[in-house]
Every structure is written in C-alpha cells, then in structure tokens.
C-alpha cells in the first residue's frame, strides 16, 4: 500500500470514528440539554407556574446544601439500609429458589401458588399489612422490597434455568459432574445472563418500592423527607431531592453495567 493510500484509509477510519462518536456522545447530550433548557425556560416564560416546576437554576443551588443537612443525610442512610437489606434478601432467596423450581417439579408445584399470590397483590398493600404485623422498623420495609424484587428475580432465574440447553447438562454429567453439583457448576452460570437481566429490573423496582413505601409510612427515609418538604411548600427542595434520587438511580444502573462487563466477560451481545 502506498503512503497516500494509507493516509486515505486512516482518514476514512477517522471519519467513521468521528461519526460514531457523534452518534454515541453528542446526540444524547443534545437530548439532555433540550430537557434541561425546557426545565429552565418553561417556568421562566410563564408557560407553567414556578410552584409546579421551579426553574433549574433555583433547584441546582439547593443540591450542595442538602448534603450538609443532617436530616437529609440520616434519611438517606435509613433508606440505603432498608434498600440494601431488602435487595440482598431478595437476591439470596429468590435466585436459588427460581433455579430449584426449574429443576424440580415438586418444588415448583409447592412454590408457584405462593408466587402467583404475591405477584398479583399490589406491593403497596403489603406495606400496610407488614407495618401492622412488624411495626414501622427495618423488618417491614425491607420485607416489602425483598418480596417486590424477589418476583422478577425468581421468574428470571426460573426461565434462565428452564431454558438452558439439555446437552450442556448432559455434557457435564458425561464429564463426571454429579446431579447435585450440576446446579451450581452448570445450571447457575448458564442461567446467569437471564438472571442478570432480572436483577436490572429488580434494581429499578427496588427504588420505586422504597420510595412508595416511605411515602406511605412517613417515619424515616428519603421518601418521608421529601414528602415533609412537599407539605411545607418547599418545592425547589422537593425537586432537588428528586434530582438526587434520579441521579442515584442512574448511578446504580451505570454501576450494574460496569460490574457485569467486568465480572461476566463471557456474556454474548449487549449488557
């Protein structure tokens, strides 16, 4: 290849890369900017009342002051605790349960009615019942999150384990894996792609249930803190809290994608 041809080829690759970068970075940024601009301009131009939607410029300055407010920080801590306990419970119980249900008809027949029952009950109703039973402490709020997130986890683990290629299990048993070890060594990793998809749903669902339960039982937590501010008409603060919660949601999803890419490098297709 001549120097000119090489240069032309490099230029070609550069154009392709630039176009790629525009699509990946610039276009999404434009969308974000349009949303933020609308947030700022709509109340300023009087299209919506600023009590309903305070302009972005009045919300942003509140953000730093939130983090020095001990009431905010302790609320966030309380929410983080019940969220992590609830989600951890769901992961530890639901994933093995879903896998075992896929491999044993007896266990499936035993657990499935309970599943259908909890699936169709609105989780908000469970908040009230659990509070009645266990009080307003960590137990009841974590249980609601665990049951709410457990459902997509059980279903994804069940389908993931049910759908694996029989030849995969047969290959393992012909290589000397016992019936007992097959679950841990073969079925679990083979079902992992679907389980991870379920975990992503569970992550988003967990935040929703967390806030909903804290709106209902307004004792502690970020939801209660937010509602209290709404009651006293601190609308810019409410928006600032919402922005923070949204940012945490985005951050968790980003962390999830990073973790999957690092821990499960063998996964095919996109995360």
């Amino acid at each position, binding site marked *: 290849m001549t120097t000119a041809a090489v240069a032309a080829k490099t230029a070609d690759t550069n154009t392709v890369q630039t176009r790629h970068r525009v699509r990946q970075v610039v276009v999404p940024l434009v969308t974000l900017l349009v949303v933020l601009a609308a947030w700022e301009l709509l109340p300023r131009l009087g299209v919506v009342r600023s009590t309903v939607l305070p302009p972005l410029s009045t919300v942003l300055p509140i953000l730093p002051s939130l983090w020095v407010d001990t009431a905010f920080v302790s609320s966030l801590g309380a929410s983080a605790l019940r969220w992590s306990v609830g989600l951890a419970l769901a992961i530890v119980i639901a994933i093995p349960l879903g896998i075992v249900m896929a491999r044993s008809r007896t266990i499936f027949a035993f657990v499935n009615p309970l599943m259908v029952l909890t699936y169709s009950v609105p989780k908000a109703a469970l908040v009230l019942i659990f509070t009645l039973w266990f009080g307003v402490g960590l137990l009841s709020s974590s249980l609601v999150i665990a049951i709410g997130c457990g459902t997509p986890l059980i279903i994804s683990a069940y389908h993931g384990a049910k759908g694996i290629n029989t*030849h995969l299990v*047969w290959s393992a048993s012909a290589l000397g894996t016992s019936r007992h070890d097959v679950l841990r060594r*073969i079925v679990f990793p*083979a079902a992992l792609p679907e389980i991870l998809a379920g975990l992503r749903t569970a992550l988003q669902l967990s935040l929703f249930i967390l806030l909903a339960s804290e709106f209902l039982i307004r004792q502690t937590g970020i939801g209660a803190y937010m509602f209290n501010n709404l009651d006293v008409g601190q609308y810019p603060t409410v928006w600032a809290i919402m922005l923070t919660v949204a940012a945490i949601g985005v951050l968790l999803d980003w962390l999830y994608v990073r973790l999957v890419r690092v821990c499960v490098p063998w996964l095919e297709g996109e995360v």
Partner: protein
Amino acid sequence: MSSTTTSTVSPKRLEGRGIRHVFDGGKSSVPAIEGIDIEARPGEFLSILGPSGCGKSTLLYILAGFIAPTEGQVLLQNEVAGPPGPERGIVFQDFVLFPWMSVVDNVAYGLREQGVRKAERTEIALRYLQMVGLESSAQSFPKELSGGMKQRVAIARTLATDPAVLLMDEPFGALDALTRSILQDQLSDVWTSTKKTVVFVTHSVEEAIFLSDRIYVMSKRPSTVREIVNVELPRPRTRESMLQDPAYGSLHEHVRGLLMDSPGS
C-alpha cells in the same frame, strides 16, 4: 496432528441389547426404536447411519445413559452401564462448550471433576488443544471461536478425560463442507492414534464410509437395524484414494439403496 497424547485406558465394548424406546407423549405414545441389538467392538469405529428423525440420536443417548430405554439394557464391557460418566465421552452436534469458561478451562473441566490438580490438568488440556491445533486460542472464550473451532474444542474436552468409548452425535452436521472434511480427517487421525471405540451418528453416507469399520444402517421410524455393512476399504484412507477405489462406488450405491424406502429402485 501430533501424537503426543496417548491413551492410557484400553478401549471397551459397548452394547445395547433389545433396545426398545417409546416416547411418552401423554395420550399418544410414539415408538421411536423397535428392538435393536447393537455392538461396538473394542477399538472399532462404528457408525449409525439413518434418515433424519429415525431415532439414531435417541439410540446414542440411550447408549450414553442420558435416556433410560423403555426396554433393553446397555452393557459396557459386559457389565450393566450405569448413569453417564467419563467412561463414555460424548460430542454433540451443537458443540455446547461452557460459555463462561475459557477454552483451556473447558478442556480441563472433566479433569477438574476427577480431582486432578490445576497445574497438571492445565498441562493436559493444553496438550489436547495442541492436538486439535488450537493451543493459541487457549485463553479465548467460546464466543470468540468459529463453529469448526468450537467443535474441535468440544472434541478435545471429551478426549481429555480419556474415555473408553467416544460417542459422537452428528458432530460435523452443523459445519460448512470444507470445515467438515478437515475435521473428518482430524478425527480419523485421532482415532488412528488413540484406538478408541467410537460410535458415530450421521446421516451422510460418504462420512460413514470414510470413517467407519462397520455401519449400522437404520430404517425409518420406528427404528430397526436394516443391515450391518462392513467397510473393507484399506486404511489409512484419504478422500482421494477412497473416491478412486471402485469398491467405494459400489459400497456407496449399496448403502444409499438401503436408506431408500424400497431398495433397488
């Protein structure tokens, strides 16, 4: 193909006696296999040849111990063969490597199950990878390999545990023609150097003749043995010499005729 890998297990006889299998489909039960006696002699390359859907894979799964036959029994060296295990190695048409393991870990998997220490099993696995010409892909994940490469890894994985019998279920059926002929040559070489008992399921007449000592030609469902054909072409065989051998032509004609519904037409 190097011959650095020598088998320590002597090949064994695998027999199916009076095998009958009926798939239980609720109201309607479909007989798949209707009374088959099959014997793979120690060190023999045996093919099971039949039309699609004739139950030849089912027969192989019964011989492997994955499916319990409705009637009959499977004997390994004159003893009733129990559940599946490393004595009867299997290679499937759809490769089924463990996608979460690197290529070398896939090949070493069976050895790990036998409690072989890591350093030793990696060394053995690399030797088998070298045998199928894939030592440079040892650290790759299966998703990075082509179909033909995956099947070579699967064969290495099965051979690494040194099975007494090698069962193969249309292993080259999903590959393109060129890759298929390369892998047939490689398998022929592997068999020559390891002298394992091989039971090979295929629907290709050419493939069966090229590789086998004997061919069990099956009928359509419900499956029975139509004829046991001896392949007396000289070894080592090459594709070229085989195609020029007049005995090949008449053998091919004969076996093809058996596969048709009315022989001789």
